[in-house]
């Protein structure tokens, strides 16, 4: 399809932009020397261009999106309605507190609701996404050790099954990462953990259920080992969708957590979201929280924490995302969230059991909200890889599962159906997976060259990464 620059015709334009409502200022010699080269197109051109782009995308509104660890659940439209409320969209972050009491009440209520769900005492909504939350949480851990003049704690322990963002965030926060291997069940190897902790342990980063979709039954022992060594324990909230209303990170012994509102709490994920990665903590860490917290019970006020680590983002984070997530939590309520998690787990188990006839499940037992399959045998025997299966799913209008992750499983596909798929949908998806599997055996070439009915076929990802073509070149 044409780029919007290629649709441009000199002198063409439209009236979709409003008149400029502020005085025009001439910057004189500091102004631009050349005209901005914006595409000159009619309203009709713009409309068709973006409609064509939209047809080529795949989102949760188009079809199944089982991207493991990303919780691509349906985003209820009521979230958009509440977030579009004038009282939320028409405010300025520098307005006096007494004129934005409704917004402050949202932040306070959201803090209470999400603390209740996670077993935390306080929460900040500043971080803009999950990894940003990890970074913020680690700064809280660092501030805690610093406040005790405990400067020798320089290491963060991360299991080898962790999300790649965990070690990256730890390094960004100035820590050295210690990797510990998983046991044969994909859970934390207690012996290795005991050997790894010590006087230099600042903390452990963990997600539970873990990356292969299993609940680590030793969790109380794990958090105790780290605490006994003087470290703190960080909970990566990526997998919270499995446990809402069932168990809480705070009760498992975690000191700091982040949530992904764009996963568990049904706000848009991907495509610039934007995301929101609130960080919750136990009371003893609250004095280090970034920026301001909402205090009071109407009237509400912003209060800076005494030993705050400082701002991690401008103002109050992605506030409208918090409005959407709070809408979701309040609409479902206590019982609804519990039911959502139970159905997420039920859907994952249904899909895993049905697919296990053909696909190999390296950890075959009752899973939580997601599971991992391995195409290692197929790759060796018939040269069909996890990538080929993922590409073939595109022809069925299914977004591929997460590929080649976790790293501890060879030729991994990580599938997370979420609770918002019906049994009928799951049955169709199972048929698609089965057909692809059969085709891989009978006509492997068709699978290895898939997709066949998408707007573009198999892309050369290596060439795209080596020689990316990122900007439009004008004919001068």
């Amino acid at each position: 399809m044409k780029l919007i620059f290629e649709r441009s015709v000199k002198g063409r334009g439209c009236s979709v932009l409003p008149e400029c409502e502020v005085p025009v200022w001439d910057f004189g010699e500091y102004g631009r020397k050349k005209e901005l080269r914006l595409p000159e197109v009619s309203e009709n051109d713009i409309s068709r261009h973006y409609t064509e782009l939209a047809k080529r995308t795949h989102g949760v509104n188009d079809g199944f999106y089982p991207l493991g660890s990303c919780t691509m659940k349906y985003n209820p439209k009521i979230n958009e309605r509440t977030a579009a409320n004038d009282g939320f969209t028409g405010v300025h972050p520098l307005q006096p507190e007494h004129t934005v009491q409704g917004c402050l009440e949202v932040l306070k209520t959201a803090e209470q609701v999400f603390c209740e769900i996670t077993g935390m005492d306080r929460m900040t909504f500043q971080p803009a996404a999950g990894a940003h939350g990890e970074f913020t949480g680690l700064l809280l851990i660092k501030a805690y050790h610093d406040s005790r003049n405990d400067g020798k704690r320089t290491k963060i322990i991360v299991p080898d099954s962790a999300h790649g963002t965990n070690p990256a965030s730890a390094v960004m926060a100035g820590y050295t990462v210690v990797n510990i291997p998983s046991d044969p069940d994909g859970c934390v190897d207690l012996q290795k953990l005991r050997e790894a902790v010590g006087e230099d342990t600042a903390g452990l980063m963990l997600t539970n259920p873990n990356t292969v979709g299993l609940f680590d039954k030793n969790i109380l022992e794990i958090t105790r080992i780290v605490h006994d060594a003087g470290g703190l324990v960080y909970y990566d909230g990526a997998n919270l969708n499995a446990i809402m209303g069932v168990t809480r990170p705070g009760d498992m012994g975690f000191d700091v957590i982040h949530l992904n509102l764009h996963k568990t709490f049904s706000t848009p994920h991907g495509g610039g979201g934007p995301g929101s990665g609130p960080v919750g903590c136990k009371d003893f860490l609250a004095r280090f929280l970034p920026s301001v917290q909402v205090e009071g019970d109407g009237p509400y006020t912003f209060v800076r924490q005494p030993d705050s680590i400082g701002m991690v983002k401008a103002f109050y984070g992605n506030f409208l995302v918090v409005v959407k997530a709070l809408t979701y939590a309040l609409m479902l309520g206590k019982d609804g969230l519990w039911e959502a998690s139970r159905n997420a787990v039920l859907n994952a188990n249904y899909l895993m059991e049905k697919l296990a006839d053909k696909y190999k499940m390296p950890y075959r037992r009752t899973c939580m909200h997601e599971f991992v399959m391995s195409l290692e045998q197929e790759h060796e025997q018939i040269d069909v890889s996890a990538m080929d299966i993922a590409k073939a799913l595109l022809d069925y209008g299914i977004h591929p599962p997460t590929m080649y992750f976790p790293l501890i499983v060879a030729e991994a596909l990580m599938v997370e159906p979420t609770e918002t798929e019906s049994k009928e949908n799951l049955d169709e998806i199972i048929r698609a997976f089965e057909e692809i599997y059969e085709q891989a055996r009978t006509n492997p070439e068709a699978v290895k060259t898939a997709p066949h009915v998408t707007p573009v076929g198999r892309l050369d990802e290596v060439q795209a990464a080596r020689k990316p073509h990122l900007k439009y070149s004008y004919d001068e």
Partner: protein
Amino acid sequence: MNIPKELKYAKSHEWLFFEDETTARIGLTDYAQKELGDLVFVNLPEEGDEVTAGESFADVESVKAVSDVYSPVSGTVAAIHEELLDSPESINEQPYDAWLVRVENITDQEDLMDAAEYEAYLEEL
């Protein structure tokens, strides 16, 4: 599988060519490049950096994943293979020409294998 006789090998699939007893060039083996797949990015240390046996000194990125490269020796980086930064594919094409770093003042090294031992080691994997 291409396993040149004149080189030494580490269990983490790096090859070493010893110029003298305390100087070696280090690269990734043919087996390593096959397992990693098509490489699209290489991150090398800087000249003068210290490397430690058993610890990561570089990383390579394929479409699938980023992987650490471990140093089989302790020493000082005397030179890096700068052309690789612009042509990571040469590790896939000619793994034994595509050295990553040249290390001098080698003080310590892991247990290294000769070509026959490395070949036997690969067969067990």
